Every structure is written in C-alpha cells, then in structure tokens.
C-alpha cells in the first residue's frame, strides 16, 4: 500500500498559498526592516542638522560673551543640554552633566553625532569643535549639544507606519485576489467533480474534456482512455456471455427435437417416460440458458443512455399479460390486468422491461395453485409503478431478501425454475433506477411485487429536460 499522502501536499490551493505567501511574507519582513532603518535615518537627519545649528549658535555666542554667560543666557528648553570643554576634554562649563566627549570625537575636524544614554533617556549627542577668536584667541574648544530623541522616534514611527500599513494592505488584497482567482480557476474542476459524483456506477461514457481547464485536460484525456479500456473489457465480457448462451441453444434444440422424435416412434414400455424426462430436461436447460442470456443482457451496460428510449409502460404491461393469458388459463389461474387506462411514458429498454414483467408474471403464475388469481397492476404517483399480486402461498418474511439472489430457490416450493427470474427483475429495475418492493398481497395473503420507477426525467436518463 502506498504511504498516505498528506492532504496539504495533495491540495493545489494549499501548495499555491504556501509557495506564494511564505516568500511574500518574508519579503514583507525584509522591506519592513529596511524601511525601519531608512525611517530612522531619514527622520534623524533634519533633527541632527537642527541640533548642530544650535551647537554652532552656542559656539558663536560663547565666543562673544564667554562660557558661563553664554550658557546662562541660553534659554533652556526641556530635554536640551549643552557642555563646553577644551580639546583635551576638560569641562569648562555645562548645564548638565553630559557624558564626557570621546577622544576620537574631540579629535574629529567635523561634527560627530552619536546616540547615548543620559538620565535614563535616550539622547542624540553632537560634538562640535570650533576655533575661538575672542574667548581664547587662536585656541579651539569643543561644544556638545544633546537632545532627547522622543520626537525623532515619533517621526520615524509615523514614517514606518506609512510604509508598513500599505504593505499589509497590499498583502491582504493580494491574498484575497489570489484566493478568489483560485476559487474561480478551480470552478471547472469542481463542476467536473460534481458531474462525476452524479454519475451512475455503470455509466462508462467519456468525460467531457472541454469542461476541464487546459492544465487538467491531459488528466481527463488519460482518464477517458482508461474508461474506454474498462468499457471494452466489460463489453467483451458481455459479448462472451451472450455468445455462450446463444451457442448453447442450438445443441439444446437438437436434443429436444431428437427426444421428441424418439417419443413418436413405437418404443418399449417405460421408455416414453424417460424420453419425456429428456425433453423436459432439454427445455429446462434451454430456459436456464435463456435466463442467463437475459441476465447478461441486463447487467449494467455502458451504453444504457444510448439504448433507453421513451416507452409506454401501460402498453408493455398489457401486452405481456395478454401473452401470458393462455398459459395462465392452462394452469387454471385467473390472470387479470388493472391499469391506469392512460399511457405511462418513461425512458427505458423495452426488451429488458418486457423481461422484467415476464419474469414477475412467470413467477406468480408458477407459484400460485390452480384456482388462484394473479393480477398485474400499473399506477402513477410520484413516478410510474408496476405490480404483480397473487393469492398463492406468498414468500415468508425471512426469505424476502434472498429471493432476489441468483440461483436462490424458496425451499419446499417444489417448482422447477432457473432461480434467476427475480435476479433478472432486480437487475432490470436497477438499470432503470427503479426500486423493487416485496410484500404480501391484499389482506396479507399471497405475494405482491411492486416496481417503482423514478418520476420521468428524474433519473438522469433521457427525459423531457
């Protein structure tokens, strides 16, 4: 047995979603990261410039007034700090105890920015080296300016949200579009599935390739080839059974004719009974062969849709009953027909339905003792039905399931028969989508068979659709 394949691997939709959305999601994470870095960097630049501008302003003022005055005169907004030191890093003045400038910052010719922590807050710090003319002529000083970064973070977050929200929306819409596209794309496959699901088990007609999307078409084509092969095998089998039955008839005919001839000649006493036995045996054998042939004809056939034609069940039943009239009279049975009086049209195989009626009547006439009655009825109500009732011994409830089995015979009935009659009835009924009910006749006496057909056009067969 092949190992069961997980549903996810079998589902094209899952496969597509997995292969499409995993990379897209990873890509989204990546662009978010890039966006985040870019947002911080870009949003930081104007703030950095402003911070540097302030440091320069301070430097120029300081050059005019000296450090203490300059710092005192400097308005001090919350979250903005300065310090002044010489190029060795020695602090000359400060409005807050900012971290010491690093030696490489002190040495740098251009302003240096860095992130740092101060009083538990994250800050941005610029170190700016400048030359003084008045305060320390010819000398150089270093000014540090720092500010809290809350504003920058707010800006970068809002930039980030401008990047991320549309991307999330993009994924959401893309996902929806792909889902809808898949659903639409798979609709023909789903339609094909429904068509196959609705098929009768014996329907071996090819599937319509046009129904499938082009990707699935090769599969359908191969399936059709497979169906055609099965159909061929089935037809071959049916032909074999039919031919075998045909071929058996001729020797039986010969046997019977020889026995009949022998009976005509003057024969020693006692031989006539033997010859009659041979005759009867030949007749029963050929009846069995006929029944086998009928059964083979009514096994699920791949061509039912082609064979089935609208027919009148009422007329067919009446004709059958009429043909059985002489036989019923010979056996002293009152055979009657109670029909609807109107035609009952339904699609079917006329020969097969005639076999069905013949076998029901044969059965009833054989098992009903002389002096009894057999009635063939037809009716209409939620589909046509056909019934055969008799006042014979009936069929015990325990046997009712099994009487339809092939070669099953009710014990102790003492009647010769092929044991195939009711099997034929069941096969023909099945082929026509009809159900067979078996019960007792009126008043709980005898047997009653009823074959109920589906309403016209409801059995997926050519109807008036």
């Amino acid at each position: 047995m092949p190992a069961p394949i997980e549903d996810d691997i079998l589902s094209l939709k899952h496969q597509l979603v997995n292969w499409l959305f995993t990379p897209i999601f990873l890509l989204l994470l990546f662009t978010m990261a890039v966006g985040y870095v870019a947002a911080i960097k870009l949003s930081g630049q104007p703030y950095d410039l402003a911070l540097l501008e302030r440091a320069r302003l301070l430097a120029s003022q300081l050059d005019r007034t000296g450090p203490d005055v300059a710092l005192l005169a400097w308005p001090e907004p919350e979250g903005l700090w300065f310090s002044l030191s010489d190029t060795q890093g020695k602090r000359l003045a400060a409005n807050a105890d900012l971290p010491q400038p690093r030696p490489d910052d002190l040495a740098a010719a251009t302003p240096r920015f860095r992130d740092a922590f101060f009083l538990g807050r994250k800050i941005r710090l610029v170190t700016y080296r400048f030359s003084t003319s008045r305060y320390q002529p010819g000398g150089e000083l270093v000014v540090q300016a720092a500010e809290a970064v809350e504003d920058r973070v707010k800006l970068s977050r809002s930039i980030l949200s401008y990047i991320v929200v549309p991307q999330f929306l993009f994924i959401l819409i893309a996902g929806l579009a792909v889902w809808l596209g898949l659903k639409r794309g798979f609709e023909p496959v789903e339609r094909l599935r429904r068509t196959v699901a609705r098929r009768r088990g014996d329907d071996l007609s090819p599937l319509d390739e046009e129904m499938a999307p082009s990707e699935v078409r090769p599969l359908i084509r191969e399936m059709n080839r497979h169906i055609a092969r099965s159909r061929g095998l089935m037809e071959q089998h049916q032909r074999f059974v039919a031919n075998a039955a045909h071929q058996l008839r001729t020797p039986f005919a010969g046997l019977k004719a020889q026995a009949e001839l022998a009976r005509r000649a003057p024969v020693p006493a006692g031989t006539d009974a033997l010859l009659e036995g041979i005759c009867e045996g030949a007749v029963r054998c050929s009846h069995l062969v006929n029944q086998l042939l009928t059964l083979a004809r009514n096994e699920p056939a791949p061509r039912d849709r082609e064979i089935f034609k609208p027919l009148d069940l009422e007329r067919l039943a009446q004709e059958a009953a009429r043909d059985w009239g002489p036989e019923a009279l010979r056996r002293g049975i009152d055979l009657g027909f109670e029909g609807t009086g109107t035609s009952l049209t339904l699609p079917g195989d006329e020969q097969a339905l005639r076999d069905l009626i013949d076998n029901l009547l044969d059965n009833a006439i054989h098992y009903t003792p002389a002096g009894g009655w057999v009635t063939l009825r037809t009716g209409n109500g939620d589909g046509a039905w056909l019934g055969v009732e008799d006042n014979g011994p009936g069929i015990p409830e325990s046997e009712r399931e099994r009487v339809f089995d092939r070669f099953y015979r009710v014990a102790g009935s003492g009647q010769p028969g092929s044991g195939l009659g009711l099997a034929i009835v069941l096969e023909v009924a099945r082929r026509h989508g009809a159900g067979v009910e078996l019960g007792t006749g009126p008043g709980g006496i005898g047997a009653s068979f009823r074959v109920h057909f589906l309403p016209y056009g409801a059995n997926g067969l050519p109807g008036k659709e």
Partner: protein
Amino acid sequence: MRILIVEDDGLLADSLIRAMAAAGYAADLAGDGELALKMLLDGCYDLAILDLNLPRLDGLAVLKQLRAARRALPVIILTARDMVEDRVKGLDLGADDYLTKPFSLAELEARVRALLRRGQGGGGACIECGDLSFDSAGRRASLCDETLDLSARELAVLETLLFRQGKVVSKEQLIDSLCAWDEEVSPNAIEVYIHRLRKKLEPGGVVIRTLRGLGYLMDKA
C-alpha cells in the same frame, strides 16, 4: 413438396430431416450458407428452413440474396437470437416466419404446413376450432356442420377471435375489427356480442374465456 433445411448443427439437422421426412416431405440438407444459396437458386424447393448462424455465409445474407434473385419461396428462420430487433430484421428481409431455439417440433411442423398451404393459394380460407369452422371467403360459420345464425357484427367478432384462437384478443382489437361500420362501437357493445356468441357456441364445445382487463380468448372447452 421439397424442403431445404439449412442448419450446421448435426444433431438438430438430423432431427429436422427426420421430422420433415416423417411428415411426408422430401428434405435436403445444406450445412453452410454458400451451399444453401446455390441449392436454393438452382433447385426447385417449396420451402426453406434457415438457420441464421451459418459458416461461409450468414443466414440473413442468404435470405437477402435469395429475395434479390426474386425467389418467393416461403422461408422459416430458426435462430438462437431472440432479440426483438433480430426478429424484425429477419422479417424485413423477407422471412415468412421465425422460430427461436429451442422450439417444439410440433410447432415447426404446424408452421411449415401453414406456409405450404398458403403457397398453394386457397390456404387459410377455412379456419377451425373444435367443431366450429369459419369460411372467410363465404363469410359463413358453422358448428357441427350446421350453419350458425349470426349477425354481420357477430361474424366479425367471431372471425377476429378465431383467427387468433388460443391468444388473448383485447376489446380494442375487437372494436377495430368492427370499424368498417362507420359508427362508434362501445366496449359495452362488444360485451353484448360476446355474450350472444357464447350462447350460440356453447353446444359445440367452443368457449370464449374472459381475462380481467385483458380481453377474450377463444378455445376448445
């Protein structure tokens, strides 16, 4: 009377030859289709009993070529095929009768007799059932050699039943048999004619049985 039996199964062919000989006909045998066609075209046969499943040439092909050569001799087809369409095909090609294997020799003999009689011309003019006989040419029915006093409609009903004696005839078929008269015939009227016929036929041992919902059947008592 010469009869050609075309049958490739030895046992059946042997029975047929014996039965035909016993009935007083000269019977020849052809074991395959080609030989059969040659014998039928060359020889002078009054009737052929033709199997369908033959070597060399199929029975239906033999029949077709025979009819194409404008040979009108009666042909009875014997076959193991019993599908309705097979039967129709055989009859369409010009077969006169059709028997499905296995059949009873008595039935075959009766059909041979009927076909040969028809071939002779005057056949079928007089139909009998027990002591009842009907002369369809003279439109006269007699019971135990005494002419029955019947109305024209009663005669028509009797004729229809007699032609299909032993078989069930529906009321509709009886009404159709009376349609030559330009008036409506009701099912009740048929019952009246049947009732009258029964009374007149009873002494001769001929009965008309009623089958519920199906029709009537004429038979010897």
